[in-house]
């Protein structure tokens, strides 16, 4: 037990002021990103018309026509003004590569990513925390050794390689074994993904990629949960709880796990922020048209408006996830409000 704090107590802010402060900070970061967003990608090497048009736009005229159509012939300050005006009205511009409004493109690509990364994050968090609790509580047990060893191995494996391996084992089927899952894609071509059969079909297609990502993410949660639970086990209040005669499960679930959950909350909150940025390698291996893939492919053009749009969406997601984590923290642990 530590000494009581000195008499000069720091006055705690009210929760409302704390929340308002955090929200204002988040807005500030968002505004900053809005500006950085524009200039960041203009520094990229390459010229969209030349990259896209190599071997296609064979005359100078064709190049100029392309640039004029998509506003690339304007001066940089002029383009910046147009960008800010458009973004504030919710217009993210037209993709240079796909020639469709970027907002349509992002909405189209966001669902596969949310479904894939969201499901995997959720599964990994739930299974990982469960594994961490059991490993930590019975440290050194056979379960602990198996769980920690295998989750570390999976964590160190490159995601794309794990994906390819699963494709071979479960989609192609080695030797006489049948292939159970498709090798890639989001749904079968002739199925409407919103129908009941379509939902099953999407689930069937997503099984392998979700499995890959879940396995890869597992260690994050399992190890953090395990080590923070180990920290708590040594605390006096656990001894007290045992001394009161509580059963082992009660000590674990009511006391130790609750306190050990705080660091894990941070990790989960941060991961949720990164859900929209996608999982580039897994999206590539399983050919899932998600946001991560969209952004990486836009880099090669460079497709300015798609890059700006995806960065804006993903930074906004991280900023809001952080804000949410801060707000929840303020409730869970009043000490952070100082």
């Amino acid at each position, binding site marked *: 037990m530590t000494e009581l704090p000195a008499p000069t107590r720091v006055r705690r802010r009210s929760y409302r002021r704390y929340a308002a402060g955090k929200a204002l900070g988040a807005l500030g970061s968002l505004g900053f990103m809005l500006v950085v967003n524009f200039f960041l990608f203009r520094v990229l090497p390459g010229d969209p018309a030349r990259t896209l048009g190599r071997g296609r736009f064979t005359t100078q*005229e064709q190049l100029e026509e392309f640039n004029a*159509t998509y506003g690339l012939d304007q001066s940089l300050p002029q383009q910046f003004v147009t960008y800010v005006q458009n973004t504030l009205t919710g217009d993210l511009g037209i993709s240079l590569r796909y020639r469709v409004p970027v907002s349509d493109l992002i909405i*189209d690509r966001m669902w596969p990513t949310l479904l894939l990364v969201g499901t995997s994050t959720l599964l990994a968090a739930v299974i990982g925390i469960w594994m961490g609790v059991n490993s930590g509580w019975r440290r050194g047990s056979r379960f602990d050794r198996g769980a920690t060893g295998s989750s570390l191995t999976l964590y160190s494996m490159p995601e794309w390689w794990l994906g390819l391996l699963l494709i071979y084992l479960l989609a192609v089927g080695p030797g006489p074994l049948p292939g159970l899952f498709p090798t890639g894609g*989001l749904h*079968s071509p002739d199925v409407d993904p919103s129908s009941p*059969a379509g939902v099953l079909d999407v689930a069937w297609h997503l*099984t392998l990629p979700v499995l890959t990502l879940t396995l890869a993410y597992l260690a994050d949660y399992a190890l953090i949960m395990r080590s923070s639970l180990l920290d708590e086990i040594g605390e006096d209040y656990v001894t007290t709880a045992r001394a009161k005669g509580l059963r082992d499960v009660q000590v674990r679930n009511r006391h130790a796990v609750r306190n050990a959950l705080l660091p894990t909350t941070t990790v989960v909150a941060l991961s949720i922020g990164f859900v929209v940025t996608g999982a580039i390698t897994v999206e590539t291996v399983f050919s899932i*048209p998600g946001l991560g893939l969209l952004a990486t492919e836009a880099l090669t053009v460079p497709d300015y408006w798609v890059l700006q749009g995806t960065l804006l969406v993903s930074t906004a997601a991280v900023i809001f996830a952080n804000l949410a984590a801060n707000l929840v923290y303020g409730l869970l642990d009043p000490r952070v409000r100082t």
Partner: protein
Amino acid sequence: MALALASLAPGLALAPATASEDEPVTFTVAYLNEVDSFNPFLGIEASSFEMWSLMYDSLTGYAMEDMQPTPALASEWETSEDGLTWTFTIRDDATWSDGEPLTAQDVLYTYERIRDGGPERATWGVYLKGVESVTAPDDTTVVLQLEEPSALLPLLPIPIVPEHVWSDVSDDDMRSYGNEPTGGEPVVGSGPFRLVEGTAGGSTYRLEVNPDYWGGAPHIDEVVVRVFKSEDPAIQALVTGEVDFVEGINALQVQSLEGRDGISAQMGDSPGFDEIAFNTGSIDTDTGEPLGDPNPAVLDPAFRWALNFAIDRDQIIETAYQGAGQAGDTIIPPAYAGFRWEPPEEDAATYDPERAAQLLDEAGYTVGDDGFRTLPNGDPIGKLRLYARSDSQTSVDVIELFSEWLADLDIDSEVRAFESSKLTDIIYEGTFDAFEWGWYVEPDPSSMLSYMTCDERGNWSDSWYCNEEYDTLFEQQRIEQDDAAREEQVQQMQEILYYDAPYLVTAYSTVGEAWRSDRFACLRQQPDPGGVYLIQYGVHNYVNMRPAAEADECAGEEGTTQLSQEAGGEGGVSTAFLVGGGVVLVGLLAVGGVVAMRRRGTVGDRE
């Protein structure tokens, strides 16, 4: 667990997908690049061109043998004496898929839209360049009036779109008009297939047969395109039978698929070349002042010409191309036999380091005291900067080999690899000595030839090459009406380039393809023989392919390959995976073991 169980069900249901009598015949093809737009005025990717060709027709098509213009929507054409008036007769039996007749008015509308500017002209304007007016005196006649004769005509691969649909698309909307199916209605077209499902950048597209196609209905019911983002899963999908065709794979992958039951694979000649290009004199195109800092050596044609014999093209093909490719020499690949010029035997592009050294000595690049060659004025050459594209292993390998061969000739060099977009910037800044890249050559050589003209410096020229004699020939062949005379001019231009050596052509490229020969037959190569089976000019194979059971119906057709089914054992892919799987297992066991050992010691310490 619930997810896994639920997802097993459709898997088992879909697995035995063998075609029965009344089931639709679907040809599923794996693309490695998605369609960037179904709007034929906007897209740029080769896969988009393939889709438009399935959905629309153009006035002329391409022959399978040599890709020369053939009749399509235009059944015939004639030229006036002076070559300035071209009259095309449009077929009267073509209809739009919504029942409206396709007439000369639609052609007129499409061409006017392109001539008016905007993205339409950016995509197709080159084919109507120098056209003074387009008229449609009646429903089956289109007349093009030219300012000067054009050697490009009758080549007109522009997809003709229905006026009654596209007149609703304003110029402003055109910039982002997707031309995708809405509300379950297929996109209105006149081609052999109709697009019923698909969005730009999406991962699956579905086209159903157009039973009223003027060229006769295709023998399959559906074409499904699935986009794969990497090659290995696409190949696995071919093995499982999820897809029937994969293209764009490499030579090792083709080798691993050869000999598998029901699968055929090949490397098809693709009309393109790769080259080592030099900075032949970068200038500021506004002022004419030198730009960048090219090494004086590469500015000298004699120096570049000597290096033509320093390149072992056979070794390049063997190591950098895994044997899949042909040694190259000029910028027109063998696929276009008519336009191609062959170097005379005494100057053929062979590996002859002694001749290279001798030529360098004669040009004044003698070996100095430090063991390196010097410039004719005695100054050291210094390090030549050789650049490769980091996104292509072949590019990096070729440039590294080149650097070694230069070292054998006592020329110092450094190799660096850049992203394509970064390398493009470097080329326009003129801060390089040589780099490796390639071009795809269209059936009409005009575009490729134009990249080497003086006017293209600062635009598409990447070697900064400029030669007045070459430019004069370029202008001549552009308006030459006599085919034989034009071929001769084009050959002369290649000869000039060969001896001036702004490019040292290293290889003619090939494309790997694999397909289920147990499911589909009657495919034909383009160019025939030796070419590719898909992503051709035109959609001959989609229209003419048949299910394998009907293979004998096309057996007599000229040029059609009766695809053989080779029996064979295990392919290389599965072996690679087995080895990989074994490594993982061993790794897992090892890690598990180590962890177990370390943990055992601490078991007793708890509480």
